[in-house]
């Protein structure tokens, strides 16, 4: 049985909470100008921990760093080298990665506002506050950026849209439930079925993950930690764990073309309001209210009883996607499959399925084992909120979008897999040349145009909605390390 996560004073609070009651937030991208000053500021920064959540927190501060930032702070290469490749090369650091993520053409990193070349941030400062408190909070935490050792910060704002994302849909409903108490042992026959209780090590570095192993992170020669700031590595007590109680924070600023979205659907619906909403809901895979399109069946493990109605469902009984289209955004982002989707109950049936005999049609058993590809989402909206009806007549200059933030331990197997194989996968679950109707690039590989969305109908014929333009564009992004508090102190004093 995996151990419980108890070092709550060492874990940044974002792992446990999206700070829902702190409706104001601002994300500052900082570049280091003066290493000594920046280290001193980082060492003293009032970072909110999980333990702090025991009492009401009116404001919160979180800090994350890019690989470039850790280098600028003087973290030795020997320590950095222990991080996984995606973090080291960065979200925009490799053309092959950009191809997989769909960051090509007009969305190529060269055209981003930040996150590329000279626009690469070193430090991400996440500030949250109760209504009316944000400006004061910022003045307290970072009264003078230059004095703190940074260049003039660039700020990414947020807007409280009341739990809706800019297209108008209730958002943030489906989240994995990390197994903080360590009550579930992964890789038992129970995993044949979909479950929402996920090993803590899928989100927190230094703990057992869904394979019962530890994700890649730097475990240091003790000589690099003479002050004994860092904890011993769980899987190798002779080494000090720089990753322990930290996570990887993936940030993507996604501009959403709200007006373009509703106008495109209005054209498809020929002005019929109900049909326009119906198509949008089919594309998203939930009602505007956030209610699912499929009925909940047997309770899903790891979904709280009060959430079962909205989150306690799978798509097992909707194989053709007649209720929730196979290509719908939420179905792509989390297909809710167990390890052996085709298996009947019983050990013999599992064996039969494991040899590949249970799958009948060409689309059976294509997408399995969702538990290895889950993300803790912590994003915030930005820009001007528009109701769907307003969007039809809004000026094109109104900008809004999502400051997409997610936490995961293995960027390649979690965020990048979901983005490339599921959202942007032209053949996802047996679809024929489609990408995610909301977020997808319409050209997943150079010679393939994938700009339709299939809305299945009861007689088997799919309505092919489209051609759809791109509704979401990448404005910037980067991979960060969200360190544990001890690790942050080590980084601030390193080298």
């Amino acid at each position: 049985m995996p151990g419980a996560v108890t070092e709550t004073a060492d874990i940044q609070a974002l792992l446990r909470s999206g700070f829902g009651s702190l409706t104001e937030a601002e994300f500052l991208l900082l570049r280091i100008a003066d290493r000594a000053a920046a280290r001193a500021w980082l060492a003293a920064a009032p970072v909110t921990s999980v333990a702090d959540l025991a009492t009401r927190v009116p404001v919160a501060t979180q800090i994350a760093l890019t690989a470039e930032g850790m280098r600028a702070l003087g973290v030795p290469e020997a320590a950095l080298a222990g991080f996984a490749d995606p973090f080291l090369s960065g979200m925009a650091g490799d053309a092959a990665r950009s191809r997989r993520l769909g960051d090509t053409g007009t969305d190529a990193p060269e055209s981003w506002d930040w996150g590329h070349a000279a626009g690469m941030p070193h430090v991400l400062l996440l500030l949250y506050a109760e209504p009316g408190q944000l400006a004061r909070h910022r003045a307290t935490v970072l009264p003078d950026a230059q004095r703190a050792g940074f260049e003039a910060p660039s700020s990414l704002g947020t807007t409280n849209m009341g739990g809706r994302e800019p297209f108008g849909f209730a958002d943030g409903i489906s989240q994995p439930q990390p197994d903080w108490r360590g009550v579930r042992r992964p890789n038992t026959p129970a995993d044949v079925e979909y479950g929402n209780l996920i090993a803590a090590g899928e989100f927190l570095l230094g703990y057992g993950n869904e394979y019962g192993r530890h994700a890649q992170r730097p475990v240091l020669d003790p000589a690099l930690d003479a002050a004994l700031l860092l904890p011993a590595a769980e899987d190798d007590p002779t080494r000090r764990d720089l990753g322990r109680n930290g996570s990887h924070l993936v940030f993507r600023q996604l501009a959403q073309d709200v007006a373009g979205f509703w106008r495109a659907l209005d054209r498809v619906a020929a002005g019929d309001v109900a049909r326009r909403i119906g198509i949008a809901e089919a594309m998203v895979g939930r009602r505007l209210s956030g209610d699912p399109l499929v009925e909940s069946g047997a309770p899903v493990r790891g979904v709280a009883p009060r959430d079962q109605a909205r989150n306690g469902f799978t798509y097992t009984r909707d194989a053709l996607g007649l209720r929730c289209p196979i290509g719908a955004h939420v179905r792509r982002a989390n297909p809710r499959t167990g390890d052996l989707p085709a298996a009947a109950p019983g050990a013999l049936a599992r064996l039969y399925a494991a040899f590949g005999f249970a799958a009948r049609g060409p689309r059976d058993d294509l997408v399995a084992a969702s538990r290895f590809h889950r993300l803790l989402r912590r994003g915030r909206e930005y820009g001007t909120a528009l109701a769907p009806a307003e969007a039809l007549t809004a000026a094109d200059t109104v900008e809004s979008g999502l400051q997409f933030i997610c936490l995961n331990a293995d960027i390649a197997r979690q965020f990048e897999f979901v983005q490339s194989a599921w959202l942007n996968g032209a053949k996802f679950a047996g679809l024929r040349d489609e990408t995610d109707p909301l977020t997808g690039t319409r050209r997943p590989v150079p010679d393939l145009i994938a700009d339709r969305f299939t809305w299945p109908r009861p007689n088997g014929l799919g309505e092919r909605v489209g051609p759809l333009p791109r509704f979401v564009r990448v404005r910037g992004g980067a991979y960060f390390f969200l360190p544990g508090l001890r690790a942050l102190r080590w980084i601030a004093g390193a080298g």
Partner: protein
Amino acid sequence: MQSAFMVAAPVDPDCEADLRTLLATMNRLPGFADPDNELVPFGRFETLHFARFVILRDTTLGDLAAYGSSFPDAPVWLVLLGECDGPAPAMLVALAERAGAGLRRIFAFCRGFDEGADLLAWLRTREVQPAAFYVNWRGRSVRRIREEASLHRALRAWLDENGAALANAAPTQVRDRLIAYVAAEQRAGRLALTPEPAPDATARLRELLTLIGVPLLLLALAPALIVLAPLFLWILRRHETRDPVIAPRPAAAHLAELTRREDHDVSNQFSAFGCVKPGLFRLGTLRALLWLLDWSMRAIYVRGRLARVPTIHFARWAFLDGQRRLLFASSYDGSLDSYMDDFINKVAWGLNLVFSNGIGYPATRFLIGGGAKDELAFKAYIRRHELPTEVWYKAYPGLGTVDLACNTRLREGLERAAMDADAARHWLALI
């Protein structure tokens, strides 16, 4: 029936860089062949599914030291391999005839190449037969794949025009309309669906013998196998507990060489090379398992799936250097990371059976447990043994195995006499 062809010749050490430069001129994108390239215009060979040139420069030979062994004079092989319809020798004849000049320029960088020699004979003496060969769908030719893709395109275009009016029609009724449309298109000569030749009696008999022959043989040998099993397992466990795991993270530069050739299409290539663990025990185990694997891929996994994995177009395992080293080469759909995740989550046991006999593979238990389940070590092992494929050709870009399977089922469903409403609904959903 599809066949695998492969020619391997040792590269002249002084010429490797020039050879890589020459091979790169065949590409449209990094590692991605221009079908009309001047050297070997793969696109003009109508029975060719996939082909590749890969240079087997094995950077893991040092791992042999863990066994007190070495292979100082190991050749660097240039390999031309591919999959075609019909027998492999005929493909080599066609290549030598129609791309002889280009092949001469390429193989001139190999030791022992003789300008004056008969190219075909030279290639034939360097042919390597696979120890095991996987075909996603036995017997499906390039022509059939292309015809069925045209069928799908035609049905889709017709439905884009006429589908709205049929939105509420019964599935069987829609199917009847589509059958009529296809028949008209065929009569007009706009659509071809060449009938599949029915397998003759001897072919059927051979298939039946393949299917039952191996189980019968194993049944006959069962008493001996059962008696020997404890001894085998005892020796196996001794090996498994002592064999070193050598799976350091691959160098960033090596990874970059691999990934820049990836994800230019919905499919990708994979070529990996490494040493078999020294000793007769491991070699014998590996050969027996490859023989069984090969049988399962001829008899059982013949229509669309290798165990639970549907995304592999072709795969082969081939020995080189007198069975000291093993090449694995495949063409598959999606990115390598998802391919590896699929492997681990769906068929870790199958990978372990074969690859645990290679030096450095993550530790297994009784050949099937552990191994690939050690995720990071497995992924590092795979990437470290993978080699850049210099040139890779695919005859049907944009099409994945799921397209091919859906198109084949569409065609089969078209030719079926009758369907009930539910079957027709599922058939229509394939479009």
